[in-house]
């Protein structure tokens, strides 16, 4: 007897596949939980440090959805399945060679799923895939009836939150190298720093014993809203973040993060039309000195002291990088309005920095994401790469004045290039 039957359209199959692909990056098994009016896919990884769940709106996502309460499943049905089996079932059928040739493509018309269990019936997840050309494929996968483990998140406890466009976040995450393990998020004034690093050494022989340490500083204006304790360092696994952002970028909606203190879980959530996704990942990290100080921004462009300035026109990236969503044209503008270095900040040898900046200006097209090369003095920089801990502390927190100087408005002169030259 079928406990649960539902129908997926072609888009539904794709959405299911995306969700399963994301879940497979956490664990090998997926838990299915179905009620009369809700359908969940969830998983927890083996070390119990990450939990992912997808909730499907039964009335909008499924073409037909019917839950038949029977036997032990009066209230809800639950089971656990091997993800690989499900992924291969919902895989994309349009091969590379047949692309463009519509006749040769095997396009899924719809997919009828039935879950059967009970006495005298084999426990099977039955997927009947009906192709547009008339073929019908029936797949029967076994499952195990086991209660899903859900992670709980206390929203009251999570004081800090931010939300950002998932595409922007994905662009940021794309810059982090393959060998890295952790992602640190901290705030510093009106910037949020994403730092990706690894604790493990690649090999003892190499000069650089640790893989690339990448830091991206993002203006708070990139965030839809943000309310985080200043200098709070939250460290999470980059692998989990990558899996989440990859899926979130498909939906394209804003992704919201909520967390409290290190060693407490962080919640990442986003929703699309018929699917809402929630992830809980464990954090480590360190708390800054001043819990009272907050980095805050309610909505884009609101309540900032200098909100008459369009966000992009500020001289943004002070340290290593600019937010990647900026176009190169904007970056060029920023270049042109880059102020002379504040004397209080860099009293010693200003000349090498100037030349470095000029050099970078000439290569602007090639290095979009590192437009204003104003590296910190050599000592600071080498520390930040090879010595741990205080390297991740904000480097120049004392000179707020310098920041104010840096926030120049767009100079309306016509030629940015000549401007650039004049500026230096």
């Amino acid at each position, binding site marked *: 007897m079928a406990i649960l039957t539902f129908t997926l359209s072609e888009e539904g199959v794709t959405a299911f596949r995306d969700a399963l692909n994301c879940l497979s990056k956490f664990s090998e098994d997926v838990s299915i939980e179905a009620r009369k009016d809700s359908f969940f896919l969830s998983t927890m990884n083996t070390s119990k440090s990450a939990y992912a769940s997808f909730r499907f709106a039964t009335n909008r996502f499924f073409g037909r959805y019917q839950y038949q309460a029977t036997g032990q499943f009066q209230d809800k049905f639950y089971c656990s399945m091997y993800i690989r089996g499900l992924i291969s079932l919902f895989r994309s059928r349009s091969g590379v060679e047949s692309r463009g040739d519509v006749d040769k493509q095997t396009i899924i018309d719809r997919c009828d799923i039935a879950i059967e269990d009970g006495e005298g019936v084999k426990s099977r997840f039955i997927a009947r895939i009906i192709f547009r050309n008339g073929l019908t494929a029936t797949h029967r996968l*076994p499952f195990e009836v086991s209660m899903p483990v859900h992670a709980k998140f206390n929203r009251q406890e999570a004081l800090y939150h931010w939300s950002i466009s998932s595409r922007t976040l994905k662009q940021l995450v794309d810059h982090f190298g393959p060998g890295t393990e952790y992602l640190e998020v901290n705030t510093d004034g009106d910037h949020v720093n994403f730092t990706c690093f690894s604790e493990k050494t690649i090999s003892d022989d190499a000069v650089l014993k640790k893989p690339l340490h990448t830091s991206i500083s993002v203006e708070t204006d990139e965030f839809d809203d943000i309310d985080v304790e200043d200098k709070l360092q939250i460290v999470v696994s980059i692998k989990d973040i990558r899996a989440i952002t990859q899926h979130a970028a498909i939906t394209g909606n804003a992704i919201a993060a909520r967390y409290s203190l290190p060693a407490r879980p962080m919640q990442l959530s986003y929703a699309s039309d018929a699917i809402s996704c929630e992830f809980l990942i464990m954090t480590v990290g360190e708390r800054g000195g001043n819990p009272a100080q907050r980095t805050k921004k309610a909505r884009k462009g609101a309540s900032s002291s200098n909100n008459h300035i369009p966000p992009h026109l500020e001289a943004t990236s002070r340290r290593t990088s600019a937010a990647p969503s900026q176009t190169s044209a904007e970056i060029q503008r920023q270049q042109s309005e880059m102020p002379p270095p504040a004397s209080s900040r860099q009293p010693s040898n200003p000349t090498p920095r100037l030349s470095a900046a000029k050099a970078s200006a000439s290569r602007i097209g090639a290095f979009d994401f590192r437009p204003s090369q104003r590296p910190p003095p050599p000592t600071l920089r080498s520390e930040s790469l090879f010595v741990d801990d205080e390297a991740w502390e904000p480097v120049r927190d004392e000179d707020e004045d310098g920041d104010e100087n840096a926030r120049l408005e767009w100079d309306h002169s016509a030629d940015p290039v000549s401007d650039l030259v004049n500026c230096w």
Partner: protein
Amino acid sequence: MATEVKPLFRAVSTSPRPLYQLLRCIDFAQRVHVQITEDGIRFAADNSRVMQGVAFLDKALFSAYTVNFPPSEDGETPDYPNFQIPLSTFLEVLQIFGSVDVAARAQKADQDPYRSNIRNYRPNAFSNHTLGIAGTCTLLYAEEGDPFKIILEESGTKTTAGLTTYLPEMPEDIPFDRNDLTFKIIMSSRTLFDCIAEIIPAGPVKLTITATKTSPFLTLSCAGDIGSSSVDFARGKDLLETFSINDRWSQAYKFDFIRHASEAMRIASKVSLRGDSQGVLSLQFMVDVEGGKRSFLDFRFVPFATHDDGDEDDVEAEEYD
């Protein structure tokens, strides 16, 4: 050149690509059995006498085709030359063809930096391939016991490969009774390929093919480690061009064997599935080769013996419910 003694067999092709495509489909055995006749060459690969694949290269595929068989004693049908050659080596040799052109172009590019930097991605109007003077590939079998020679000539380079010929093992063809067919289905080969691709993820060992008079007409099913899968034509009768069946027919085959034929399914345009009363499955593929010619590939499979023991019943029951 020995002009007096004519070679037993000599065939010239200007484009050995079809030969390569066809022969690659039966690349599942170490050696193939070669038989040369007046109409063409027959390559037969055999796997433990339960699977057989035959590629017949019609003489129309060659631009020149000459045989010179010694007349046999009784003066009727001559003895056709029979021998075995390693197929993978033959395929490798055929792949040499065309490489000279690439090498020549690379050399030219070195000498002419203008071409190498700017025009490299463009199809070269003066390449041998475009001009259709791609050189020649000659197959030569001088006399019995001689190596089977492949001579490739292009752009002034001549490559000669001699493949050792082995004594024929004379494997009997798998007996297939054309007069006692249980069913015959002709359909697009691509559809069969899709069916097989659909059930591969289940990791099957055994593939069961069932043909029935009524819906679902033709079913391919299997049970693997992560579940069972089946593909049927209940809604897709239009996909079956010819469908004649005498009786319900169901046989199981080793999946790996059927999978060996998937290259043929991929390149062919049509496939004819036939099963005789003994359960032998015949797959005939029609391949459209360059120049509007047609070639055929023929596969035969011997089914698993049908004495079901207990645990197999279990699997079968699930497949047919």
